[in-house]
């Protein structure tokens, strides 16, 4: 049962600092955060967890829009979007936690339509949100999300929009089997000029088959 699982995790949490039964912080637990990352959505370096209202403090890292947001507005957003429990919200917002520093470094959204098709949005904050370092984090998160979305959430398709010059993220997507489905010409503005926007897609061809 989920409830009992969370109960155990809460016992292990003390004063915002996680202390395992051995007294050693367990992998996947955040020291400064208010909640552990999901054990099945972490790779030892980065992990994903559900948001808590206190994540408003880090809105510049996880919010997908470049426009500024007050702490109050960010807190309201986090609370108001959580409309349906048990993982049934059509849009699942997750926080990206750096497990080395325990910092919230970004956010991810899985948008589901008809519980069949989905779109992924992965955002990483910092001084250069489209630079190599940020792309590596997004690539790591993509590697966590895609198998989960297709396998455990049992979705038929998933799509992610990636600017054509973000090659690290594109390579990671292609390694996962994603292919370029759409190329929107000149849809992204960079200081050096315009680049195309790719819609990379993964289709579960076995979806809905009784022998799958």
């Amino acid at each position, binding site marked *: 049962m989920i409830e009992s699982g969370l109960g155990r995790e809460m016992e292990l949490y003390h004063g915002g600092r996680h202390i395992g039964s051995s007294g050693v912080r367990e992998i996947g637990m955040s020291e400064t955060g208010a909640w552990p990352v999901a054990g099945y959505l972490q790779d030892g370096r980065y992990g994903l967890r559900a948001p808590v209202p206190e994540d408003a403090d880090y809105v510049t890292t996880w919010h997908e829009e*470049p426009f500024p947001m007050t702490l109050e507005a960010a807190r309201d957003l986090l609370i108001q979007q959580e409309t349906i429990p048990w993982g049934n919200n059509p849009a699942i917002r997750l926080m990206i936690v750096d497990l080395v520093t325990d910092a919230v470094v970004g956010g991810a959204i899985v948008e589901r339509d*008809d519980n*069949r*098709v989905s779109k992924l949005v992965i955002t990483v904050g910092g001084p250069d949100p489209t630079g190599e370092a940020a792309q590596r984090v997004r690539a790591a998160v993509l590697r966590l999300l895609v198998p989960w979305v297709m396998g455990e959430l049992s979705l*038929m*398709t998933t*799509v992610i929009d990636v600017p054509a010059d973000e090659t690290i993220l594109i390579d990671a997507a292609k390694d996962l089997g994603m292919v*370029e*489905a*759409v*190329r*929107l*010409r*000149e*849809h*992204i*503005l960079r200081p050096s000029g*315009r680049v195309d926007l790719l*819609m990379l*897609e993964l*289709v579960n061809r076995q979806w809905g088959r009784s022998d799958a």
Partner: protein
Amino acid sequence: MRNAVKIGERVWLRPLELADARAIALAGHVETERVSRRVPTSVIAFERWVRGFATDGAPDAIAFAVCWHGDDTCIGTVRLGQIDWVNRTAETGSGLLSAEDRGRGIGTEAKHLLLEYAFVDLGLHALNAMVYEGNTRSAAALEKQGYRLAGRLTADVQRDGAFRDTLVFDLTREDWERARERRRSSHSDIP
């Protein structure tokens, strides 16, 4: 033509008003074609939709009512959605409420007015549009307007028990300017 934003040869565009919700909701009840999924929708819902376009700041969506010259009754809508003010892009959409008005070039004329608004008034750089693969009329209209097929999203919609692709089109400012020149050279009366 009260509150006209763009004026064409036969139709003009104005901002949607609350009173238009009734015509749009009614159209959803008497629709005779199965171009898209038909769902009877309330006036209340459309009033909320229209209210959503009223904003003091830069909106993320804009919709206009399409009207015949000499009349301010809403006969359809043309829309910009997903407006990205940083990258200066948006998604376009359009539709005429009555099947009788379709296939007469009215939708294309209204769309040209929307494109002029998007590229000239707003200074957008590129647009995109999505149509269900079975909607051949809309796909052909987009290509005629200068859009190019950018790709397809696999099994994006479900129709009649089968999965269908969504066709994605794009249109850059340069494409639009070329298409506009072609139209002007073939119709000398177009300004």
